[in-house]
């Protein structure tokens, strides 16, 4: 058996997960979902002065299928939300989401009938960036923090995905008495039992097998 001390100096021993995470975190491909003024700041972050390439995230792709980091920059209205969800679902695992700015995170000053009061009500979010608009440095800090999170979590074979608790997707409904409050609605696929089951099995197995 080889002892650690017998290894040459240029050999590093690590966990495969750590290595994979290290690769992932230094090669994020952002999907810019820029709907409002925050998008300008997102562009500034990508430009030469702030240079997002220093963190390995300079390859902005406008196809969700080539991306693994969605940056939602700007307010999202309720007509746009299904579009945003569809784009999110088209991205491959592993994927992350940054909610940039007050509007994307909470609706900001736009407490109106059309503006979604925080995208995290309807899609998963990993990092929130405060500010209106956030400075490019703040977005870079969010990317650095996200890299730390990626290094900490995640595994080469997606075990963390399997470990996620399964919750049947539910609609949120407005409380009829006070539309500002939310109550949990019925499961989205309530009428279609088979559709509700598709995700209950282990990854890689079909529900019938």
């Amino acid at each position: 058996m080889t002892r650690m001390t017998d290894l040459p100096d240029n050999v590093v021993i690590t966990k495969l997960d750590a290595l994979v995470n290290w690769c992932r975190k230094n090669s994020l491909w952002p999907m810019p979902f820029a709907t409002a003024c925050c998008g300008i700041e997102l562009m500034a972050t990508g430009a030469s002065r702030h240079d997002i390439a220093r963190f390995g995230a300079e390859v902005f792709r406008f196809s969700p299928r080539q991306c693994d980091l969605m940056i939602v920059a700007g307010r999202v209205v309720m007509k746009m939300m299904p579009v945003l969800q569809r784009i999110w679902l088209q991205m491959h695992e592993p994927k992350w989401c940054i909610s940039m700015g007050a509007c994307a995170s909470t609706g900001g000053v736009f407490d109106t009938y059309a503006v979604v009061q925080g995208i995290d009500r309807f899609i998963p979010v990993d990092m929130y960036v405060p500010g209106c608009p956030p400075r490019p440095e703040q977005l870079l800090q969010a990317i650095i923090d996200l890299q730390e999170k990626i290094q900490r979590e995640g595994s080469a074979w997606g075990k963390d995905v399997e470990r996620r608790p399964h919750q049947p997707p539910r609609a949120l409904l407005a409380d009829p008495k006070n539309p500002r409050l939310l109550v949990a609605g019925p499961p989205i696929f309530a009428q279609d039992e088979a559709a509700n089951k598709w995700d209950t099995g282990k990854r890689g197995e079909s529900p019938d097998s």
Partner: protein
Amino acid sequence: MVSSETIQAIQARFPSAEITEFRKQFRVCVPREIVHDVLRFLKDECGFTLIIDITCVDYLYYPKAKDRFGVVYIVGRPENADRLIVKTFVNDPEPTLPTVTDLWEGARWLEREVWDMFGIRFEGHANLRRILLPEDFQDHPLRKDYPLQGRGERHNIPVVTRDMG
């Protein structure tokens, strides 16, 4: 500025029109029954061949307002950049006006927007459906009796979770 001959021609042709002036801008208020005739007259005989905008004001809760909705047509004369504002009033229930798409094709989207936001029906419009809001939206949100935060439309969206892929 619209010439006084034009204003006099309008007044002579439509005695019921109330024409007011403010800072060299003329506003022609007409009853809803003749608004289409007035606009046709302006287009065919006064050279206002451009419809600039159609919009609406909800005078609910407005002190001393006699009618609920004021519908505003802004027409332009491209030769000398004249603008004229034509205003008419409609009321609940079922506020309705004749369409002006037979005069200006460009009024199609403008009327659809007024229908979308205020629920004013334009009779004779070929395709009067919502233009900005989703098709299944129930209300007309720029009406003053519609709550600012809505009736929950912004919450009634299915949730996408992490384990959906």
